[in-house]
């Protein structure tokens, strides 16, 4: 993820501690953590109780930044597109197939639409972005919840797949009439048109640092495992979510040294601090709200080495 690339480099240059990050997908990260070959993994979809039970030892989640999944599209000259929940459901389930459909026009009276086919681009690989997107769709559309559901990988009713956020972004950019969902940073970096999505208060919101931060004004449980989609905050962008780093609560495993464990939690403590969080905006992510930072710090202080907490 662009955020991790940025802050990891900064941490290394400031402290000299070498950090490497492999962007292989959260599945690979979780697998590597299970096999205990990495210090920590990262994921956009927190491990549910069933998955947690499958891990060899207790795992804790540290939220690190807030991101948004945007609805990106390619319609030259058609800006400020507003898509209601119903429209999203109909488009992504294949019931509306052309841009000049009267339903889209009715929702956007000020815009003119070409008679063009709608090409839905989804992910061909498993992804946390898909998880956040489908979690939102399941909350706002019972049809979607019944027929498609939520998950990192889905059986899509219509559309074509592209690999990775960059793949989807590239395909949308190259294909007139395309629409899809991508992580916010890719939409902004490639200057792809994004649609306004209607949140639960009825307001049409464009994804931005402010609207994504508003989505985090929710009750965050102590273990920070919560989905922030369809927030009740009237200013919130409804397809937002945390991303987490996961690590073992008890750090003394497989001959792991205390220094290594201490270095890991010290780094993570820095990651949720103001200094690192201030970098989030550079890559179009939103910093963690104070409530989440506090909970993260509490969790970090519960991480132990041979039973003794590493941080005070």
């Amino acid at each position, binding site marked *: 993820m662009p955020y991790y690339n940025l802050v990891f480099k900064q941490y290394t240059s400031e402290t000299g501690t070498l950090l490497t990050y492999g962007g*292989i*997908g*959260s*599945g*690979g990260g979780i*697998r590597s953590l299970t096999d205990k070959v990495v210090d920590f993994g990262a994921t956009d979809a927190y491990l549910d109780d069933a998955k947690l039970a499958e891990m060899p030892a207790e795992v804790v989640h540290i939220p690190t930044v807030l991101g948004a999944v945007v609805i990106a599209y390619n319609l030259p000259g058609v800006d400020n597109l507003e898509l209601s929940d119903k429209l999203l459901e109909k488009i992504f389930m294949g019931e509306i197939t052309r841009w000049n459909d009267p339903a889209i026009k009715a929702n956007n009276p000020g815009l003119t639409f070409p008679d063009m*086919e709608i*090409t839905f681009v989804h992910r*061909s*690989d*498993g*992804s946390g972005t898909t998880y956040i997107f489908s979690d939102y769709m399941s909350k706002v559309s019972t049809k979607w919840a019944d027929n*498609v*559901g*939520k*998950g*990192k*990988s*889905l*059986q*899509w009713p219509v*559309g*074509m*797949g*592209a*690999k990775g956020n960059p793949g989807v972004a590239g395909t949308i950019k*190259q*294909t*007139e*009439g*395309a629409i899809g969902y991508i992580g916010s940073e890719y939409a902004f970096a490639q200057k792809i048109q994004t649609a306004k999505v209607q949140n639960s208060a009825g307001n049409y919101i464009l994804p931005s640092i402010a609207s994504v931060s508003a989505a985090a004004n929710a009750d965050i449980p102590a273990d920070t495992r919560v989905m922030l989609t369809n927030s009740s905050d009237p200013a919130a962008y409804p397809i937002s979510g945390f991303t987490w780093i996961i690590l073992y609560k008890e750090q003394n495993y497989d001959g792991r040294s205390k220094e290594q464990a201490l270095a890991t939690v010290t780094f993570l403590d820095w990651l949720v601090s103001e200094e690192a969080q201030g970098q989030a905006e550079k890559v179009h992510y939103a910093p963690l709200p104070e409530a989440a930072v506090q909970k993260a710090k509490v969790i970090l202080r519960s991480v132990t080495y041979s039973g003794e907490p590493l941080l005070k």
Partner: protein
Amino acid sequence: MNTDKITKAVLFASSFLILLIAGGMIFSLASGAVPAFKSFGLNFIWGNVWNPTEGSENYGALPFIVGTVLTSLVALLISLPLSFSASLFLGEYYHGTRLAKILGTMVDLLAGIPSIVYGLWGFYVLRPVLISLGLPNQGFGIFTASIILAIMIIPYATSLSTEIITMVPGELKEAAYSLGATRMEVIFSVVVPSARSGIIAGYILSFGRALGETMAVTMLIGNANRIPDSFFGTGNTMASVIANQFGEADGLKLSSLIAIGLLLFLITGLINSLGKFIIKKME
């Protein structure tokens, strides 16, 4: 005498190692695929649902088998006239000339272009051309993937066929000429029949290559995990779905992907054996 023994031992050891590796691969593919076949039975092979949603997971290989075989067959059909003409050009008509050398080099160059570069070219160059010709699905689909595959496999069929054609004994051709045969008659009544088995071998080889091609296909086929609804529709192939979904897969999904890998392995092996059988029959 000692060096003889040592050489023999080294040769035996290397051959044995290769056998071990090949056997090991088949074994790990098979054992990885067992959970999938346990859950779905042989219905996995003709199951046409690929549903990775948690809670209702159901996997079947048919959409991918269809996609793979369809794209490879169409690619073979498209490339056949092109590579046959090229091999006649290089091996018969202009054999030994400078023109043939240049063309031969260009064809070999095609073989050296990495798959991902083909995919890139197909995405940014071929697709817009097909869109302007009125192709649906924004230029993604079985047809586009087949075209790219056809271009990729031309060099394999061409170089093998050219070799075999040039190996046809000169006496045969001269005898035919002396009987009054025209150039065309010599080629189609003498050269091609004698080179038949080699030419077919070339096509089997290129078909096998097309079956396993991954990157170029995955960028152009649309990655829709269902049986294509039309010739210009989107679909997916075995190699492509593995490449896409392997990273995030675990449990039953991982086993299903490995099972697809095993099936691809078996299909490719089957095609190669079929090729050998045909060649034997023709000799």
